[in-house]
């Protein structure tokens, strides 16, 4: 571990967390062309808690998540999942991509999408059996979509699409859940359903990381925040880290007046 020199030079304390953390990132850098989207970011996700990744638009929130999962290539950096290499821990990670990242006119039904979450378990060639279907159905029930199993996915509303994506992640029975903007453009009922599922995951000892954009709900929903604006701004418990200072630093001059008011109300 001597090759790990973190941004803040705080090698020793980080090393301890490195081994325990469900998701530990060191020096991760991603560039599009010559411009870094994420620059030398360290992140240590606390186990069994809910963490929000927040920052302004284009700050690299989603990019950080995708690069950590190897979905987009990174220039440098290392990622450990539960202390081991990513490749060995894929089965313990459930990823929920942004809703808009797929074509919802794809010819498939809701239940088939949820069954995709079981591919690692079923195998790519074996038959899907009744027990698998039952599990997928149970996951749909957890997000309140049990009546939609046989619907074509194109007929769903935005909120319903998001719930189906969450059900697919639940089907994996993972230990670490990574969600990219699950609350973007969904109705209030869906937001409630999703957050209660996420909280139940935390109660079951799972770790949840959410790319989040609504500063007003951070305090209600999350234990920890990770503020990013290309570089890491701050990381830690909501009470101590989600402050006017860190937000100002992360958002810079990019907050509109209304948002500043909103912030003041949130941070107090």
């Amino acid at each position, binding site marked *: 571990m001597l090759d790990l020199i973190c941004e803040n030079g705080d090698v020793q304390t980080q090393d301890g967390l490195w081994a325990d953390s469900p998701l530990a990132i060191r020096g991760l850098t991603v560039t599009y*062309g010559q411009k870094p989207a994420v620059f030398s970011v360290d992140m240590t996700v606390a186990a069994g808690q809910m963490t929000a990744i927040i920052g302004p638009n284009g700050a690299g929130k989603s990019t950080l998540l*995708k690069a950590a*999962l*190897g*979905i987009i290539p990174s220039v440098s950096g290392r990622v450990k999942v539960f202390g081991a290499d990513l*490749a060995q821990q*894929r*089965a313990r*990670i459930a*990823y929920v*991509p942004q809703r808009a*990242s*797929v*074509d919802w006119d*794809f*010819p*498939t*039904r809701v239940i*088939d*999408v949820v069954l*995709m979450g079981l*591919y*690692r378990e079923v195998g*790519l*060639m074996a038959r899907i059996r009744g027990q698998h279907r039952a599990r997928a159905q149970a996951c749909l029930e957890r997000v309140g979509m049990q009546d939609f199993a046989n619907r*074509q996915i*194109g007929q769903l509303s935005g909120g319903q699409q998001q719930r189906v994506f969450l059900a*697919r992640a639940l089907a*994996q029975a993972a230990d670490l859940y*990574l969600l990219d903007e699950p609350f973007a453009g969904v109705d209030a*009922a869906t937001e409630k359903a999703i957050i209660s599922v996420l909280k139940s995951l935390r109660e079951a000892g799972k770790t949840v990381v959410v790319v989040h954009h609504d500063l007003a709900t951070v305090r209600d929903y999350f234990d920890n925040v990770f503020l990013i604006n290309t570089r890491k701004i701050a990381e830690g418990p909501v009470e101590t880290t989600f402050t006017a200072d860190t937000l100002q630093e992360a958002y810079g001059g990019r907050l509109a007046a209304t948002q500043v008011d909103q912030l003041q109300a949130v941070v107090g």
Partner: protein
Amino acid sequence: MVLLDALLLQLGYNATLVSLGAALLGAAAGITGTFLFLRKRALVSDAVSHATLPGVCVAFLLMAAFGGDGRNLAGLLLGSALSAWAGLCCLNWLTQRTRLAEDAAIGAVLSVFFGFGVVLLTVIQTLGVGRQAGLEGFLLGSTAGMLFSDALVIAAGGAGALVVILFARRALTLVAFDPDYATAQGLPVARIDMLMMGLVMAVTVVGLKIVGLILIVALLIIPAVTARFWTERSERVVLLAGVFGAVAAYFGAALSASAPNLPTGPLIVLVSFALFALSLMFAPGRGVLAAVVRQRRFQRRVHLRQGLLALAQGQPIYEALTLRLLRRSGLARADGVATESGKARAAKALRDEARWEVLRRDHAHGPAAALYDGLRAIETVLTADQIAEIDRKIGGPKEVRT
């Protein structure tokens, strides 16, 4: 009735061989092409198929130079596969390593490889080496003088592609729907994409002889697009595309065998287009006609509802369509005055609106209230008891019941 004979495989050994070979090729191309279509990379196959031409020519030259038969099909196909692979690698390099978008890269690779191939073809013709006659057949497909061994090559290639797909279908579907999620789950997405392109290449190469390299793209894409009209499930799209591809190829090949000098490839493409056009118009659900009917039916419901509410509130009806619909349903007379049954229905419509009003103001009915769209009958969201409860709040019927 030569065509009928051709369809019934009565035109002799060669025509029979061609029709059966074409059907198998059509099935393989339709099924393989579906994954390409679902992955939204349909046009890549056009670049791949055009990139086969230089390989065919070089293979011919090499085989002729070493004193062999320049027209040996297996040799030509091997050459075409190698150059298709080179074209695919160029394409991948251009899209991944440069800022060129995939459509531009496809255009570049397609035209350069094809141009190079045409130059080689001209050179071969001027050199007069070997028995070059028939090499142009690879452009648009030719089935004259097809040998049993040729048919075997095609059959083996098509069957091989189908077997691979049988095992890889779930991976291919998952990657086509959500490549990011597939990566996160640990699937080797790049390799699965490569496998898909390899299958496309195999189908293209074995299809060169029958359909020709210019039109093979049609056999890969049109059946998939056609099948999509009929079903909302990917596994059924795959199977249907296989059926459509087989039918089109079989009919097309039989047509071309029914008269001398009819090119096989273009006829197969025209038959598959006919299937596509029929599906586009008449498919239930996604077809054009079905959409028009649905739209009209919906419009009718809107107009009837608005008309009934206007009647109930004693407002004049200006829209000709509304009036016509009311009249045809026996709800109003030609002058716009409600009939007896019209009055009853109008009163009910107004009452339902009032019930919805109550429902929507009551937060306890949130999910049910969200279903309000002005058209939905309230009986579909509430039980008779709940409606009676609402009616108690509204008070007794104000309208005259008939």
